[in-house]
């Protein structure tokens, strides 16, 4: 029995992890600058925004949904929190609360449309993607906001371990992954998320309020997008109305690279972290190698396929 339990995590995370390791080994042979703690701290910092968005995305995908609006909601949250602080002079905590409040509201709207009106998540979030984008542009007048109170930026500050400067936001991201991992594994609502994604009808028949589970997931995702807004503001030092345009595909890619099934019910959140790191490592490593950007795109395309193929093979091996 024990040996079976101990076998569960690998199937979900070993594959992506092997792919990540292979990528690291490859880049280490290509550039001596790659394998430094400073460089890894940097990669962590670069993936923190998409990493936190991908937590929300994983939750939604685990329920067999998908969220195209995540990046735009994150951008809106960033604009709201910076604009509230800059224009109305509210204190950082209040402004942050406003920003996260808005992203949570959008999560709630997504959730209500999915559960109450029973629309497909793809369509709902395609709609709210456009809506959030338009509101962002209108509210910000397409202008970047730069007078940001320091209280909103400290997640972008660094602390040192030895020579390595690590940004607080990266620590927050890792902490969130840990919390969500435990919540999904060890709590009743967490298990219900898997159950809903695995077999919605069976879950409903066991008497679980599937609508509430789904709604909760979308709302939580909104909260994570709000935290990602804050990280994005802290990282760039600005409220940027053009942020978030590619984050939806990036986040979904991280989730899928991490081994979570787009059909719901199967996957491990830590895989998503690994997936996000794979993307970050590719981008960083290829730049260090001096690969020009068209070739970077080409290589990324090939490597994405190879990474998942590795995953596939290592799973077969595990069986």
């Amino acid at each position, binding site marked *: *029995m024990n040996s*079976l*339990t101990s076998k*569960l995590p690998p199937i979900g995370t070993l594959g992506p992890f092997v792919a990540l390791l292979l990528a690291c080994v490859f880049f280490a042979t290509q550039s001596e600058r790659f394998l430094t703690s400073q460089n890894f701290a940097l990669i962590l910092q670069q993936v923190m925004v998409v990493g936190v968005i991908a937590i929300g995305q994983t939750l939604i995908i685990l329920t067999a949904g998908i969220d195209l609006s995540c990046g735009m909601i994150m951008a809106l949250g960033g604009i709201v929190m910076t604009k509230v602080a800059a224009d109305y002079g509210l204190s950082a905590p209040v402004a942050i609360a406003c920003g996260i409040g808005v992203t949570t509201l959008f999560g709630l709207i997504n959730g209500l449309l999915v559960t109450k009106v029973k629309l497909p998540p793809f369509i709902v979030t395609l709609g709210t993607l456009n809506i959030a984008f338009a509101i962002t542009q209108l509210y910000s007048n397409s202008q970047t906001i730069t007078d940001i109170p320091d209280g909103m930026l400290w997640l972008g500050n660094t602390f040192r371990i030895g020579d390595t400067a690590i940004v607080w936001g990266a620590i927050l991201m890792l902490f969130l992954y840990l919390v969500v991992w435990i919540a999904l594994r*060890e*709590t*009743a*609502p967490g*298990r*219900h998320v*898997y*159950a809903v994604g*695995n*077999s919605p*009808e*069976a*879950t*409903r*028949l*066991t*008497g*679980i*309020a599937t609508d509430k589970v789904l709604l909760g997931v979308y709302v939580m995702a909104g909260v994570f997008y709000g935290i990602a807004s804050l990280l994005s503001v802290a990282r760039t030092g600005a409220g940027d109305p053009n942020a978030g345009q590619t984050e939806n595909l990036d986040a979904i890619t991280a989730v899928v690279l991490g081994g979570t099934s787009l059909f719901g*019910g*199967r996957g491990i959140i830590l895989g998503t972290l690994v997936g996000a790191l794979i993307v970050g490592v590719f981008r960083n490593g290829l730049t260090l190698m001096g690969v020009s950007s068209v070739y970077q795109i080409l290589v990324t395309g090939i490597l994405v396929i190879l990474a998942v193929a590795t995953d596939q093979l290592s799973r077969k091996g595990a069986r």
Partner: protein
Amino acid sequence: MSDPNQPLVMQAKGLVKRYGQVTALDGADFELRAGEILAVIGDNGAGKSSLIKALSGATVPDEGEIYLDGQRVNFRSPIDARRAGIETVYQDLAVAPAMTIAENLFLGREIRRPGMLGSVFQMIDKKKMLQESIARMNDLKVGIRSMTQAVETLSGGQRQCVAVARAAAFAQHVVIMDEPTAALGVKEGNMVLELIRRVRDKGLPVILISHNMPHVFEIADRIHIARLGKRAAVVNPKKISMSDTVAVMTGAMTAEQLAPECLA
């Protein structure tokens, strides 16, 4: 066991359920007495599953009334029925295939950890759930090696045992089983019958849908015969012959043609 003086635990009057042009239930009545095993039999498509889906809140009937302990109830969802203590094994096995046996057994009523961890953080006690699962499944004498195996890796009969064990373990008021022994071997089938008896002896009434006549005659206190979306008759297995029962079921005979003492 069954006694006309026993109060009615569940009752339904004139249930109608239509799917497009198909009328699955066509004014079905239903009565379940306290402490009895009521078998529901009928041809394929007679509306048995539709009937118990209505009783368990899985579908909302188009017309008709349902009473629980004499009170009119309106189940809008399985959650309502669950709350009222009604536990159901569905024919199409409501299990989450990718989740483990233990998780499936406790789905929706996980055992929480003691203290804050359980009450505030809703953390589950996996160890205890595992132990309990082993105990429950041992009751059914199913040879499953590991409770942490995903349900999708089980054989058809093993899967059915999971669903049966779940219902038996948690029912408070009424247990409904839609063909629980259909996929079971001789030994396992007998274990389930034994389990049903034990549930009844705890005082809970059981509704058992089955096509297995020997099983039905062995265990039922009364037999509800469904036909064409209606209740054709309720008979007493102690008094009626198997062939007469089948005759009513297939429409070869009507309830009026039966000897009065056969009816229950």
